[in-house]
């Protein structure tokens, strides 16, 4: 079974810096981590490979520094990785990104299964998985919380719903997006890290992919971010000290200011 896992690099902290012109997140590769939901997708892919054989390919569209995260994926059981990286991909919304990723899947010569995290923790859109499936004309299931059975033809999985779950059988090839209850992502092992240093890694540009310039990056993105801002914290806690009557006075003063 040939499985592709989509991986996104996201900022490791909440303190992101925005580009004041394009209103998109500045990604400099520093302190970036693998999107946590993608780590469950990777673990599931490796477990399926362990069960059925085959290979796991980590795929990402991102800046060159994303290579570090793709190699990290190969230290945790992926066999090889493919990075789609080109300045012209910058500023892509989910439509342009999923188009670009679909070209990556085609470079791989098609796959039996694509696994994605249910969403990225920076953009929170949860659109890439379904859009990528549509670009490739594949069936997809979102929010998968368990895989009950899988063989070369079909996959039987559980999709989380508001009230419980649905059990769905899907024909392969297909795309699933996964939630975090699916498994316990493994740690890198020492031989895994040594393997990842020399693991097969390829990088492709827009030209390599023969991408349509009107469908990639900012040009290919119908979504225009008008404004982003960091919400101001206006709540504040203060500690009052003193004896009971002093405290009562202080409280009264505060209440009278508010009311």
């Amino acid at each position, binding site marked *: 079974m040939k499985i592709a896992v989509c991986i996104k690099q996201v900022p*490791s902290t909440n303190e992101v810096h925005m580009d004041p012109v394009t209103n998109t997140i500045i990604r400099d590769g520093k302190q970036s*981590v693998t999107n946590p939901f993608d780590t469950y997708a990777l673990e599931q892919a490796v477990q399926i490979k362990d069960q059925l054989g085959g290979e796991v390919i980590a795929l990402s569209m991102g800046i060159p520094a994303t290579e570090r995260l793709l190699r*990290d994926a190969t230290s945790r059981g992926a066999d090889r990785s493919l990075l789609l990286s080109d300045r012209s991909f910058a500023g892509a919304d989910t439509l342009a990104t999923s188009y670009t990723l679909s070209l990556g899947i085609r470079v791989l010569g098609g796959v039996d299964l694509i696994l994605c995290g249910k969403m990225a923790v920076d953009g929170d859109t949860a659109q890439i998985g379904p859009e990528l499936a549509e670009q490739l004309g594949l069936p997809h299931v979102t929010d998968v919380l368990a895989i009950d059975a899988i063989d070369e033809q079909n996959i039987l999985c559980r999709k989380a719903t508001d009230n419980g779950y649905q059990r769905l059988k899907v024909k392969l090839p297909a795309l699933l997006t996964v939630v975090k209850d699916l498994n*316990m992502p*493994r*740690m890198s092992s*020492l*031989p895994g*890290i040594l393997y990842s240093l020399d693991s097969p890694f390829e990088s492709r540009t827009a030209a390599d992919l023969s991408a349509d310039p009107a469908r990639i990056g900012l040009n290919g993105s119908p979504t225009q971010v008008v404004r982003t801002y960091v919400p101001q914290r206006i709540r504040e806690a203060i500690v009052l000290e003193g*004896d009971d009557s002093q405290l009562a006075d202080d409280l009264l003063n505060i209440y009278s200011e508010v009311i």
Partner: protein
Amino acid sequence: MDLNLIKPMRDDYTDYLRDESRAIGQADSISFPKNENEVASILKTLYAQGTPITVQGARTGLAAGAVPRGGHILNLSKMDHIKGIRQSADGHFHITVEAGTILSQLRKRIEQKKFDTADWTPESQQSLEAFKDEPALFFSPDPTESSATIGGMVACNASGARSYLYGPTRDHISGLRVVLHDGQIAALKRGDYKASGRTLRFPTLQGNQITVDLPTYTMPRTKNASGYYIEDQLDAVDLFIGSDGTLGIVTEAELRLQSLPQTIWGITCFFSEEAAALDFVISARDTMNQLASMEYFDGHALDILRYQKKHNPGFSKLPILPDHVNTAIYVELHCQEEIDALEGLKTIGQLLEKAGADSKDTWVARNESDRDRLLFFRHAVPESVNMLIDQRKKTNPVITKLGTDMSVPDQHLKQIMAMYHRMLAERNLESAIWGHVGNNHLHVNILPRDDEDYKKGKALYDEWAAEVTRLGGAVSAEHGVGKLKAKYLEVMYGREAIEEMARLKQYFDPKGLLGAGNLFEPVKGEVSE
């Protein structure tokens, strides 16, 4: 003095009668001074009245050092200001904090380089600007409880996993302010007041000269937090570090920061045989210089984790332990460059193979979230054991955990481990062992099932104290002696040394009121439980 400072004990203060050791004491009054002047006036007043005074920080200690034995509780938790920063001639930054400053909060400030500088001197503010331009710095001592106060860490010379490379709290203290029993204050900078032979002199801010003869004993050459730190040319600062609140009240400490390595990787290595784990430890210790910590977990500790992961939702986040392993060693690589860490990792792989272990049985954490998972794993061990004991306590209130804190010199590691295992098996006692194997400093935790086990465990503890002493070790390597280990201090140093320590204490505390019960076993007729 503002009489309101000293409050009679009330029901809502009962938490202050205990600490993390789970020992419970009693007291008549409590205070929460906000500055050094208040500490001095409380001390002066109560000392004159003959009231025992127990100083407290966050009560995270494991040796009952902060548990009062009657009298007054001097709780310093309200003294938590970071007072300034200076750069010494050698380029190091030193940060001055009040004793009640919480370690985790201090770490956050240092990491973010953000301080409340309203009360800082212009010099401090200037140093802060230089500090901001500096690459990341840190204060290395890392006791398991990061909610500890700096004062508490000074009182017991706390360590932690990373003390293997960086040393205990003592090595990172460049100055102290201490309030003495009569309210006088000593402001001590490291290097300023050193003993001549075994006579120490230092001045107080009130203009008096303190001259004291130091004990003559020699300390063991091993990780040690037992009793007064004594050596030739002793620095006055060192006398107060690890003195368990028995000589004076430390109100302020100056901490020397060091550069934070840019690359920190944690590696948990699993073994099917303990012998292989110890061979690995010994060879890694001999050949690697970038290891900041070496921690050990025995098969019982791992079994307890397996159980918790299965039955307790709070522990479901634990990574899945390989079935065939019965020992784990956690090591941490601290390097500037990633390439150096990679070399270290390769060396670890070779040493594992040489020891007969499978390098596949490793967890390597190279980023924050993986490191957090390994940290969670390490902290889950003591936590699980405490939960187990609390469970047993419900049916038998007498039961409490018996945890050792002993260290021996390097050459005795295998011997001491064999002894622990053999004696625990002979007495049919349940146990879990973990700790700082790089320093041959293991916490053997006896988990009594009933009164009989508890008695057997206590007897075993006594035997180990004697054996560790015979091997040139220490009865407390990091928790301090407090009250729980006072009787072992005599086992370790002998009666004569204890009498010398008592004379030293008497000089600083003629009425025997400071930290009553700490370090010294109560003698008949003295204040006791």
